[in-house]
């Protein structure tokens, strides 16, 4: 009897110890940050991340969703998108409206003259627009490229998404589709963009995007004729720093909106590279290059030298990296490091967000890359400007021409 009592007492003691230790662990709520943040990062990477960031561009604990994030200092676009997102509790089902209206705002405001009408004239002086919108639930995409004479590019892209089974429409035919959908045709040229173009032609059309043609494109305007390309010159190093890509050139607004149920939309809009060859389409309207979204994983958007970046699909690489469990900070860098292997003189930036709202940005070829993010984390000032320091700045990147 006594031994039985002793035994059961022991059992009771052990049991209570076990339960109390369990209680301790369950009482502390696991934060989102610990679930997806530093635990998965190796010490080396997290040190590097700390070194690279001037401000916390990574997740902060607290409420992360709903959220809107976009490239560059385009605050008005973000504010409008945030307002739309808040029109329903938790932003449910408003992400598409938020992204389309947010990017549209930049088209109307001609953000930095790199989005919308009246900027980045091509070689013939005309402005053409590229835009896309992607739905992370169905991985459905609507995109327009080389859109002429229609101002609301991302709204046309939304019509491609909702009223056709196609993914992308280009050129004059895309403008005809826009007309059929009720958009008015109007010139995208303004006195300012015309001036930009006239000055460029007066300066011997420098810089331009021609190679291996005569007359020498480095000193004169076209029209050009092709020179045959000998085998030995195929791998010639072509410096891209002369295109002065950076702010005011090659900016794209890339925006991601996520609601509390992790429904994601991503979108982009741009008027492309200044003095591009007419018809040139860059990375912005290409799913996987300019933007990518997958509700299961997260989303990414990219901006910068589209002609280089679109060959490496940085947005898709970022989403795939997050799918494999990498944190957004590493994911954003994957595409850029891949490009670095082949090119040392490009400019590019990637924003990656996972489905829970943890975000990060990476960049190359600038001092710092600014972006705007809105989320409930600071209720009195939900919209904030953040910056991230780049992997290498322009002074390290410019090649001295021989």
């Amino acid at each position: 009897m006594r031994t039985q009592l002793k035994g059961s007492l022991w059992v009771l003691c052990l049991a209570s110890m076990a339960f109390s230790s369990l209680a301790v662990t369950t009482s502390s709520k696991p934060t989102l940050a610990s679930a997806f943040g530093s635990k998965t990062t190796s010490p080396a990477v997290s040190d590097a991340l700390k070194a690279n960031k001037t401000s916390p561009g990574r997740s902060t604990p607290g409420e992360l969703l709903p959220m809107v994030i976009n490239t560059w200092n385009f605050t008005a676009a973000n504010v409008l998108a945030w307002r739309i997102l808040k029109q329903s509790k938790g932003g449910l089902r408003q992400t598409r409206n938020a992204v389309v209206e947010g990017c549209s705002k930049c088209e109307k405001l001609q953000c930095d003259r790199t989005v919308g009408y009246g900027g980045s004239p091509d070689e013939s002086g005309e402005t053409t627009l590229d835009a896309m919108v992607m739905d992370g639930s169905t991985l459905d995409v609507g995109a327009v490229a080389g859109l002429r004479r229609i101002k609301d590019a991302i709204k046309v892209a939304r019509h491609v998404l909702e009223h056709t089974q196609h993914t992308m429409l280009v050129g004059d035919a895309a403008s005809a589709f826009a007309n059929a959908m009720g958009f008015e045709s109007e010139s995208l040229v303004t006195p300012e963009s015309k001036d930009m173009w006239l000055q460029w032609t007066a300066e011997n059309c420098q810089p331009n995007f021609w190679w291996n043609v005569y007359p020498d494109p480095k000193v004169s305007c076209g029209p050009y004729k092709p020179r045959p390309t000998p085998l030995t010159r195929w791998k010639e190093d072509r410096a891209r720093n002369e295109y002065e890509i950076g702010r005011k050139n090659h900016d794209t607004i890339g925006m991601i909106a996520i609601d509390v149920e992790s429904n994601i939309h991503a979108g982009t809009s741009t008027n492309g590279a200044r003095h591009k060859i007419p018809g040139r389409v860059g990375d912005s309207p290409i799913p996987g290059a300019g933007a990518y979204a997958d509700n299961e994983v997260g989303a990414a958007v990219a901006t910068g030298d589209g002609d280089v970046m679109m060959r490496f699909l940085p947005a898709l690489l970022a989403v795939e990296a997050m799918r494999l469990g990498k944190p957004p900070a590493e994911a954003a860098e994957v595409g850029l490091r891949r490009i670095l292997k082949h090119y040392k003189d490009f400019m590019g930036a990637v924003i990656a967000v996972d489905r829970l709202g943890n975000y990060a940005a990476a960049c190359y070829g600038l001092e710092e890359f600014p972006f705007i993010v809105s989320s409930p984390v600071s209720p009195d000032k939900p919209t904030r400007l953040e910056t991230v320091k780049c992997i290498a700045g322009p002074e390290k990147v410019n090649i001295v021409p021989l």
Partner: protein
Amino acid sequence: MKKYVATFLTVLWLASVVGAKTTSNVTRSGQRPTGQLLPMVINTWPFAVANEEAWRLLNLRKGGLGQTRNAVVGGISECEIQQCDKAVGYGGSPDERGDTSLDALLMDGSTMEVGAVADLRRIRSAIKVARHVLEHTGHVLLVGDAAADFANAMGFQNESLNTPESTKEWREWRDTKNCQPNYWRNVFPDPKSSCGPYEPLPSWDADANRDVETEIGPDNHDTITMVAIDEESNIHVGTSTNGLRYTMPGRVGDAPIPGASSYADNEVGAAVTTGDGDTLMRFLPSLLAVEAMRAGKTPAEAVEFVLQRIRKHVERFQGAVIAVDRLGTYAVACHGFEYQGFRFSYMVSSPAQQSRKETIVCTQALEKTNSEIYRKVIW
């Protein structure tokens, strides 16, 4: 003694069964045993003329060194000239307005440089224009009328891409088939029963699934995509197509998008695809296949991985993926192609086999998706 013999025979029998199973796996994915694998050329569909021409060009130099670009451009050009299956080149796949337009791409695996054209009109040699974009501009993709102007500047002549045949086909579609099939949705009048012009319906069902069975008949939406690898594992890939039939003008599919229809990286290998461009281009199948091989998967695993990714989101589609690693091992997989008996054929050339046609069996969607049934109820 008898017992040993019996066990020995059983083991032999088991081994042969296991052997048979793995061989059938191999047959399914199209992998072939060793031998000298490089140089090699592989392309989608049984377009023998393209493959033969590419192989001939590749062998103008020993080991095909430095000839991969010429081989891809020359081989694909043959299909454009000969209007392979009316799916490549002029005179095929008229759009809604009866016009043919071309898309093409060329990618160099050493520098990862790309030249591409989309919605090219009035110019017949699309892949050659794509080569000019690659070699004479700092851009990747030129589209539309402006791309045709660029071609003129590069010395290409304007020629109509329409033929009496393609125009007749289009007229039939418009006059006798009520413009069916077409690619509109959520518009008025009902695109499933009448021609346009259409006006948008307010999108009250923004999540209406796009997974609608558009009647894909024979000879529709073939694209020639081709990989050429020389002895030193220099790779070029190329694509050319006239797109889908009766599409909305200006529609661009996966063909001119690097990472969608084709991708190459000398460090890893290459992948090319063909099928429903509107669907495939959202998943970047060629890039996914190359990334899978980069991560160490075999070509056979890479192609399965890619199709599985698409199957997760889209039940009914047509798609075929060819993946080749830098040493010349290739694998092929496909889904759909009901009109071909759920089979996909392709051409391979290597020192062991010249211009050989191979065929694989495709996976298929099992039953009508809920969305298709649901969609009937809406209308």
